[in-house]
């Protein structure tokens, strides 16, 4: 036995453990190689882990990414309003159009029924007007229905809510109670949103619009039915100012009878 063979025997004896360890590592590497290289094997191992992580991610999205996404969307919408409107318009437009069409159809049917059922001089007059003007009878009715009309005017003392004068075209709720409640609402709103010299000027209730015009010791509430728009509001404000100035309202605040007569004479013709 030569020197080299002896050395080999000693190596075998001394490095048995390391050799076994190296051999086990080699086996593991081969298994890993096979797992990584063969898709099916890899999928079996990795899929459950990815699935678990994915589920967790989905659960956490609202908390983690939600605020950032919302903020980003808000910012995006803010900077490109036109694009957003453009994108939404066809959808919303269609919805609104369909709703309006439906409501118009119902209104038209109601009007036709009304025309067919009733006979009156008013109708004859409307028919004649329709022929003369070339406007459809139903359009004239719609115009009648949508014109703003003054239903009730009340002059109310500020603070106490006491009625100083009243005029009602149709019998509505008791003016004293209405005036009291309006004053209470006015007081509440003006107290709650206290800002220098600001008054409640308008209340909308069902089909009625309550226009409130303030003066130093009193205010005038006008209940309007029909379409109350900015043009009508302007005209109404002018008329009220005209009434207060021309009819010496301030001088007659303590004379309920006189003030009521003046109020009725001024507003009964709906001259707005």
């Amino acid at each position: 036995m030569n020197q080299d063979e002896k050395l080999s025997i000693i190596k075998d004896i001394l490095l048995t453990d390391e050799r076994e360890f190296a051999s086990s590592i080699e086996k593991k590497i081969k298994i890993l190689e096979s797992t990584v290289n063969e898709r099916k094997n890899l999928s079996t191992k990795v899929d459950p882990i990815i699935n678990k992580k994915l589920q967790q991610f989905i659960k956490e999205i609202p908390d983690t990414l939600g605020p950032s996404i919302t903020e980003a969307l808000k910012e995006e919408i803010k900077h490109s309003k036109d694009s957003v409107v453009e994108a939404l318009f066809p959808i919303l437009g269609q919805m609104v159009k369909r709703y309006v069409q439906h409501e118009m159809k119902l209104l038209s049917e109601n009007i036709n029924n009304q025309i067919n059922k009733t006979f009156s001089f008013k109708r004859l007059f409307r028919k004649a007007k329709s022929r003369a003007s070339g406007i459809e009878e139903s359009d004239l009715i719609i115009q009648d229905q949508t014109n703003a009309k003054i239903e009730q005017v009340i002059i109310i003392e500020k603070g106490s809510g006491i009625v100083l004068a009243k005029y009602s075209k149709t019998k509505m709720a008791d003016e004293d109670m209405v005036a009291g409640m309006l004053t209470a609402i006015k007081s509440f709103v003006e107290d709650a949103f206290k800002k220098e010299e600001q008054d409640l000027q308008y209340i909308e209730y069902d089909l009625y619009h309550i226009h409130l015009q303030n003066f130093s010791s009193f205010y005038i509430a006008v209940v309007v039915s029909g379409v109350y728009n900015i043009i009508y509001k302007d005209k109404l404000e002018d008329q009220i100012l005209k009434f207060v100035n021309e009819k010496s309202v301030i001088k007659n605040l303590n004379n309920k009878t006189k003030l009521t007569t003046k109020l009725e004479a001024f507003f009964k013709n709906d001259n707005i």
Partner: protein
Amino acid sequence: MITSKKIVLIGHFGVGKTSLIRRFVENTFSEDYKVTIGVHISKKTIEISDNKTSVSLVIWDLEGQDDIKKTRTSYLLGTHGFIYVFDLSRPETFKNLKSELSFLSENYKNIPVKVVGNKVDLVNKAYLTQHTGTFKPLVEFFVSAKTGSRVESLFSKLARELF
């Protein structure tokens, strides 16, 4: 033309302000307690026999407050007469009677105030005697919204004082 006067009822929660008004205006009473939120307004026209005139009492029923200073002052503007109501069966509703009335007389000078002990049907004479020190001379009426006792005369007397 009938003159209108604003009457305001004030006092603690649950003393029976709304019940008093309901008894006076509608002559009804209900055991159900519904708390008043904000303000509720009622009206009744009565004749004042002495003057042969009619007056419309526009009655403001304010939500109850354990301290009069907490009442929204804008609701008290232009008041012609106050009715301060307390519950005879609950001493906590009249323990600060003096200071509450002082507040009214200082801030709303020359406006008549009727001080009313409600729910007299729930207490006996001995109880009233026991609290005489607190009640006299401030309390003018012991009434019962439930039975209607002296409710009419309370409002009538106040209405007469307004002329």
